[in-house]
């Protein structure tokens, strides 16, 4: 049946430890500037761990002159790098910096949501590596939670692409700072 596998990112739980980012490299052996997943601090209160969001309406698809992208029934967006001509239109079109241009091969690669692992019933390496359960995986065709939101502060505009990611926002905290 048709699914839309997507990430769930709990901004309240993420500590920015980067384990997901490096676990991705450990699994997929990406080197140098090619980062399929990245952890950044997107606002005063929140980190973001972001990869390809396997959008419902992927712009990379629309702009690719070689039709190098496909979408699996589970929603995972793949690029067949052998078809890539290195034009970088997808790199410009993607709001999430998901397509990564490899300067050594002159081709684009990107997060494939560890589909070989998922096909074996394993979680993507990044999700498995998250020790605080800030990063999760779900089928967004059936996922429902009124506490979840479609975007958080600092996340790129989700219009048009409809990224397959749901968020839990940061909760309010109490803080005392020295007044000097």
């Amino acid at each position, binding site marked *: 049946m048709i699914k839309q596998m997507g990430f769930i990112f709990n901004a309240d739980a993420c500590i920015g430890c980067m384990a997901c980012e490096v676990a991705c490299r450990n699994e997929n052996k990406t080197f140098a500037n090619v980062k399929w997943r990245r952890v950044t601090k997107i606002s005063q209160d929140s980190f973001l761990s972001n990869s390809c969001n396997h959008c419902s309406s992927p712009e990379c698809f629309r702009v690719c002159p070689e039709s190098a992208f496909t979408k699996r029934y589970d929603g995972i967006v793949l690029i067949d790098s052998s078809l890539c001509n290195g034009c970088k239109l997808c790199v410009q079109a993607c709001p999430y910096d998901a397509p990564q241009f490899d300067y050594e091969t002159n081709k684009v690669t990107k997060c494939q949501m560890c589909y070989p692992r998922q096909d074996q019933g394993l979680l993507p390496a990044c999700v498995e590596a998250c020790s605080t359960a800030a990063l999760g995986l779900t089928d967004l*065709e059936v*996922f429902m939670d009124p506490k979840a939101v479609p975007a958080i502060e600092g996340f790129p505009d989700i219009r048009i692409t409809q990224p397959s990611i749901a968020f839990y926002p940061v909760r309010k905290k109490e803080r005392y700072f020295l007044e000097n």
Partner: protein
Amino acid sequence: MGNVMIPEFAQEMLAAAENGLNGIAIKLSQFLEHPIIITDPLHNCIASSLENLENHQTEIVIHLHLDQDFEQLFFHCVLAYNGDFKEALGHRIIVNNLNQGCIFTLLESADGEKNLMDGYESLIHYAASLCSLQIKKDKEIKQERYRFKNAFLFDLLYGNFKKKEDILSYGNIWNWNLLEPHVVLVFAIKDFNYFSSDRQLIQTLLYTVEQGLTQNRIEPITFSKQNEVVVIFPKKTDTRNQQKETEFITYIMNQLKKTELQDRVACGIGKTYENPEELFRSYQEAKVAFELGQLLEVDMPSFANMGLETILYKHDLQALKEFYYYVLGDLLEYDENGGELMYTLENLAKYQFDLKQTSEALFLHRNTLRYRIKKIEEILNIKMDDLNNRLNIIAALKIKQLHKL
């Protein structure tokens, strides 16, 4: 086991079931010498031994007798259909513990025949079981086909087919001639909450769209996903003429007003493609058009009609902002002290720099407008009648609108 005989009627009914629910209805009617009607859970007739009812999806109204109850397997009632009233004996058809319809035996008159039927109860019960099996089978076939069809459309809309022949041969299964040009239309629910019960609304949307296509005698090639229903709309002639699809959209929008969706649906139209391999682009374009349509407040946004906007929407935001402030920054600064020159300029651009139309729209005297234009020209240090300047202004204003600056 001793010498167990399977009754003849059972053998015959089973054989009749080969012809589906109608076969069952006709055979049962022959045994009982009474007409038979089979309905779905919404009381639509789906099979019957009566010629005037057969396959007509006639709605049947059931009046239960006071002492009767739907929870019973057998019940007596009065059926109303086609202006007729008939006494009937009902029997529920149960599939997987759910009520999936009824099998009715029509009676000539009330009480007398009630008792007459007593001897045939086991026969009716047996027929109902056969109906239940048949309905289950039909459902599975339908689901299987639906799943198969959805998978095909998914691959088509996401460009997963890399060979045209594959698309055409799959399309033939449903008699879709994908060699003809098509355009993709997207109907999507606005402000959709993906993670809540908004989800159920999509079924209503899909139903309305499919009904609309059937009404317009168009083979429904539809696909639903999250908040949207996608239509692959055939364009038999003149591919540039958008009249057909706009008429269709208008029709659907009107139909939707009657449902709980009301005005929560907006649409987007992709470009027409002759090659089915390119249809996925039309789909993505339709979705971009949908989003831009919302931003620009266009009712029937078509990607083909959106020139500059599609470029400006995708371009690097920082560069766009810089361009915007480069072109109109001085005017913004001037307006900060309460001026409304930006508003004037926006309207001027809206009316193609036509003084007459603009002044009418703004309820301004033509001279006042002229004075304001002069002021704008002074502030921006440009001449408004230069076509290049006009283009810059139009682009900057579109950036403002698209990116909500």
